[in-house]
């Protein structure tokens, strides 16, 4: 009960500020929190990166293994994304099998990467129809202070760009590892931008307090040429067409800004 009462009082305060164009932490409606990116911190992983978005912290590890391709795409490598909301990240996370929130998070991050064809999966074939590389992207949320989607998507991108694959040759049907590495072949760099709607006002990169009082959330992922490659509305509220179209224009620009932090030309 107390949390609901507190939420109503907090909601009023947050909404008042936002109506005046400002947020609780002093940010503009369209501003992201400070972003810190660190790559390659987990040596045992083929690729890794940690993103701090304000106090939200997400670690992504990339592992590459050899496996079988899917039946309907025999000439392509496999991509799979998993997310864990580990209990230490928030008092609201419980240990156990993935719940709907961690599944949604994983699938939205996956969508951005898959639909933009970020990874050149046709370059990951060892033996067509039989052996391919499987790219495991594991999203590990370390601290939840709002906007896990954007932080996870950015960390996934940075981790992929950091990923190195071993050189190999196929001898007598066996894969033999050769010395040296090459980077994971990538063709696109998707970035996710999430909005929260509070009292009909859209704000970018909601932090935890804002997420707790928002009506609804809208995530849009953009690929390197400014096309939309994934979208997900969440939460119990609604949007008008107007709001969605306005958001897509702002998001396109924000995505470019975030991408520049990871992809140095």
């Amino acid at each position: 009960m107390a949390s609901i009462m507190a939420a109503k009082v907090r909601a009023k305060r947050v909404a008042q500020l936002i109506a005046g164009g400002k947020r609780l932490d002093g940010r503009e409606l369209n501003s992201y929190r400070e972003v810190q990116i660190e790559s390659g911190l987990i040596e045992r992983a083929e690729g890794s990166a940690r993103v701090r978005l304000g106090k939200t912290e997400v670690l992504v590890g990339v592992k590459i293994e050899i496996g079988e391709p899917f039946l309907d795409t025999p000439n392509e490598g496999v991509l799979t994304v998993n997310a864990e909301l580990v209990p230490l990240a928030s008092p609201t996370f419980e240990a156990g099998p993935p719940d709907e929130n961690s599944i949604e998070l994983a699938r939205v991050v996956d969508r951005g990467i898959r639909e933009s064809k970020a990874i050149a999966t046709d370059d990951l074939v060892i033996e067509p129809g039989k052996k391919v590389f499987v790219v495991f992207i594991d999203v590990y949320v370390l601290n939840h202070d709002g906007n896990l989607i954007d932080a996870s998507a950015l960390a996934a991108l940075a981790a992929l760009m950091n990923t190195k694959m071993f050189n190999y040759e196929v001898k007598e049907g066996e894969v033999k590892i050769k010395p040296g590495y090459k980077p994971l072949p990538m063709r696109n760099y998707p970035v996710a931008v999430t909005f929260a709607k509070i009292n009909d006002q859209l704000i970018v990169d909601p932090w935890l307090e804002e997420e707790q009082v928002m009506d609804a959330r809208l995530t849009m992922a953009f690929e390197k040429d400014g096309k939309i490659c994934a979208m997900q509305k969440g939460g119990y509220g609604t949007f008008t067409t107007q709001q969605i179209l306005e958001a897509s224009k702002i998001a396109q620009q924000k995505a470019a800004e975030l991408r520049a932090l990871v992809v140095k030309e």
Partner: protein
Amino acid sequence: MSQKKPEKLIDEKGIRYDGRKLNEMRPVKIEVGVLGNADGSAYIEQGKNRILAAVYGPREIHPKHQALPDRAALRCRYHMAPFSVQERKSPAPSRRELELSKVMREALEPSIFTEYYPRTAIDLFVEVLQADGGTRCAGITVASLALADAGIPMRDLVSACAAGKVEGHLIVDLDDMEDKSEGADVPVAYMPSLNAITLLQMDGMLTNEEFEQVLNMGIEGCKQINQLQREALKAKYTAVKEAGAEKEGEAEEEEME
């Protein structure tokens, strides 16, 4: 019973492989109140999709800790029957089904006056008996009718329809083959009286301009679906009404007990 993929899904004249025009929806058949035990139920056939929805509630909530003090908890289960797809699907809930259960719940909740029934559960079950693309949209459409059939007070019906891009053309109501091909798929759910979008997702790639067109096509599709939903609801009760003209309301207002 597999289907071979045709060379092109859309020909030079803009006619789709199943004969439809670009902005044409698949034929829809809806029936309301089809199950005996559920408080509300409905069934839809849209193209080859066959989906059943049932509602139980508002009712006592179990386990008790899921109860919300200020409103009813809407719980939604989207599930596909093992025989509903080409390759038998395991009955265990997949990650996709869990995600869809969540987004469908979030698409329907804005329409329900949950605040009228605190500490109860409204349980919604959507079973896909046969799937051919666009099941989450057809599922939302039929679930909304099941809620109305249960007499649960709502702000509006929720109507859903997908639009997208296939082989360079912008189209409405993608079926499974169109969905699986390159392009884009944008499912939308909408409450027409309130002009409010309750579900929006996207797979694929679209420019901002294309997205605007596709979104508008999706909403037009939702409006068409809304008409069909209203007709289906009325059809169930028109037979009852046609039998007479006596003012039932008069009897009610006069009764004193």
